[in-house]
């Protein structure tokens, strides 16, 4: 269905609003006829990307190509795309027919042709006989159908959809997903779809573009993104997963949760720290002793409709989530194994925090917008530029912002089987990463401190 020909190319596209970087060097191509989904949490830049393509925004840097030609200078009303907006954006002073005919009338299409095309598209979205209705009298689902019809009637080269189903209830959303997929197949035009709903993305897309914090994290088919996430963020965002710290012992051999496993990944080096992802449905129960890789105690078991969701504590003390069609009683000891194919090994993005700082005097360093005490640094003088390393588990988080040298907010959290890995966003916009056994929630306000002996300071050499 999707050809190899690119219809849209984004090259090194960046965009900031009021000094805040929203898109950072986006590179992306979209093939003709493809159903592409931009997926990510709110504020990841997905809607901004769509608005850049639609022409409502201009990139600060980089270029956007349509069929190989730069369209930066072309205003939205001359671009052969049409958009379905999140809140429909129908024209309340026009009825259904006039809303859909709006674009055709502007193009001076003859009246009888308009009539014909509007009727055809209304039939396609199952809204025949609604021509005369006032748009405000329609339900959310019907308004969305009219919005889709209004976009499709102009026969755009690309249909842009900005979270079109977000305002609908679950049942209706599922139905509309199927209809959208159907329309895409019938029309054969390119769909670019923005959503924060990973399930929707997996259902609809030919290609998923996972975004976070203004950057593309991964591009791939739904199966690739699900089965082979490139980092902990993607693994956590798409579907349920067990994300664990591990060590790549050698090619095809990895250790995590205190056990060694065979895997299929190569090329990480020897004894390298890695992140390991195991999907909950990929941990299997067995009765046979020779198959058993480790044992665990079932802590909880919940029926989820199709499967049971169980939390187990491994014999080495790590908590894992398992999904299985069979239920195992709480407190029973079970034998478990994982197929080498189902272990996804990922490079760690970082193994400790690294900050840039400046020495204030022999025992104080200034960094992250605060001043911290450190052990005496006889080799360094005030004003020296330094790099400061702090291990993830050596960051002290405090309940009250004012108690810490730094104030921040819990921005993202991952459970790693026996501890939490938090991303803290400081008030100055810096990130730091923390391993902790304490339970925090996303959005918690925290104070941050470091003990003097935990700051590892080295002189920074100007590049």
């Amino acid at each position, binding site marked *: 269905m999707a050809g190899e020909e690119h219809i849209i190319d984004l090259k090194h596209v960046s965009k900031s609003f009021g000094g805040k970087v929203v898109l950072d060097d986006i590179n992306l191509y979209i093939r003709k006829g493809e159903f592409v989904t931009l997926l990510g949490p709110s504020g990841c830049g997905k809607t901004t990307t769509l608005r850049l393509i639609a022409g409502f925004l201009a990139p600060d840097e980089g270029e956007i190509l349509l069929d190989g030609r730069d369209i930066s200078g072309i205003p939205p009303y001359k671009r052969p795309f049409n958009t379905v907006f999140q809140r429909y*954006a129908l024209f309340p002073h026009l009825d259904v027919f006039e809303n859909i005919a709006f674009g055709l009338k502007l193009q001076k299409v003859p009246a009888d042709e308009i009539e014909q095309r509007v009727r055809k598209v209304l039939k396609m979205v199952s809204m025949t006989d609604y021509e005369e209705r006032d748009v405000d009298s329609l339900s959310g689902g019907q308004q969305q159908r009219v919005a889709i019809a*209004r*976009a499709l009637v102009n026969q755009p080269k690309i249909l842009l959809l900005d979270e079109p189903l977000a305002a609908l209830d679950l049942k209706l959303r599922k139905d509309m997903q199927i209809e959208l997929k159907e329309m895409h197949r019938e029309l054969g035009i390119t769909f670019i779809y923005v959503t924060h709903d990973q399930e929707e993305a997996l259902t609809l897309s030919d290609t998923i573009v996972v975004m976070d914090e203004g950057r593309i994290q991964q591009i791939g088919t739904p199966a690739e993104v699900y089965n082979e996430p490139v980092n902990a963020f993607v693994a956590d965002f798409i579907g349920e997963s067990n994300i664990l710290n591990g060590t790549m012992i050698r090619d095809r051999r990895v250790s995590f949760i205190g056990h060694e496993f065979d895997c299929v990944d190569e090329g990480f080096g020897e004894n390298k720290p890695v992140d390991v992802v195991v999907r909950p449905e990929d941990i299997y129960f067995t009765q046979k002793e020779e198959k058993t890789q480790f044992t665990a105690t079932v802590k909880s078991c919940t029926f989820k409709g199709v499967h049971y969701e169980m939390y187990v504590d491994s014999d080495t003390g790590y908590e894992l989530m398992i999904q299985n069609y069979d239920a195992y009683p709480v407190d029973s000891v079970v034998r478990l194994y994982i197929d080498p194919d189902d272990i996804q090994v990922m490079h760690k993005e970082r193994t400790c925090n690294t900050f840039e700082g400046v020495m204030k005097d022999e025992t104080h360093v200034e960094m992250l917008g605060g001043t911290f005490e450190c052990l005496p640094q006889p080799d360094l003088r005030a004003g020296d530029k330094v790099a400061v390393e702090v291990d993830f588990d050596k960051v002290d988080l405090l309940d009250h912002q004012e108690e810490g040298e730094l104030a921040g907010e819990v921005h993202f959290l991952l459970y790693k089987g026996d501890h939490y890995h938090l991303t803290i966003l400081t008030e100055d916009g810096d990130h730091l990463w923390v391993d902790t056994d304490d339970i925090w929630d996303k959005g918690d306000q925290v104070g941050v401190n470091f003990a003097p002996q935990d700051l590892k300071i080295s002189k920074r050499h100007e590049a």
Partner: protein
Amino acid sequence: MKKFFAQCYIWILMILLYAPLIFIAVFSFTESKVLGNWTGFSTRLYENLFTGRMQGSASLISAVENTLLIALVSAAVSMILGTIAAIGIHNMTGRGKRALLFLNNIPMINPDVITGVSLFLLFIFLHFSQGYLSVILSHISFGTPYVVLSVMPKLRQMNPNVYEAALDLGATPSQALRKVLIPQLRPGMVSGFILAFTMSLDDFAVTFFTRGTIGLETLSTYIYADARKGGLTPELRPLMTLIFLIILVLLLVINIRQAKMQKSE
């Protein structure tokens, strides 16, 4: 008992407020030259007013014409300027937006005399000859804020994507403005127009200071001069009654529109 006093209070207030108007309206149906002297029911003053058989009728009629002309032109221009300003302010954010809304409120609160005198001084300073144009410009300056205030809520209610949707469907910015924005802002624009129109009709102080020396009279300045000459021309009584009725109807129209708008939300 308590309720009785509460009712009385309301009625006394209403009577105090409306007594002068009722007084004028009642005495517009008698022929007496002196206000307050009932000489029997007659519609003579109304007849005189419409047939022009009265003293100084030419200057009264021209004052009415001037008033209407100035009110219509200034309200129309205010409506256009105010709508454009409201769209601009709506698309601003933060401190600038708050500052502009605050500035917009000043001309409405500022006493008319001060507005009048300051405009008078401005025209003198600019060597701008005072007459029709200066009066109309002055009325535009105090009418525009009312339009801004009545268009802003409409903009706030509007789906922010509607304008973009129009562009997306192939409308140029000016087509989007005409075919999508203005139809949705129209109720607010009309309310603003009516407000600016009544403000202009009503104005004395600003007109008085900015009309210059070419002898331009509006209704309010005519009545002022007439009263100083020694007693009001009797035909002013039916005229005022009619104006009051017209304003009453306009106010009812605005209120009914607003009630309808709130209902439709």
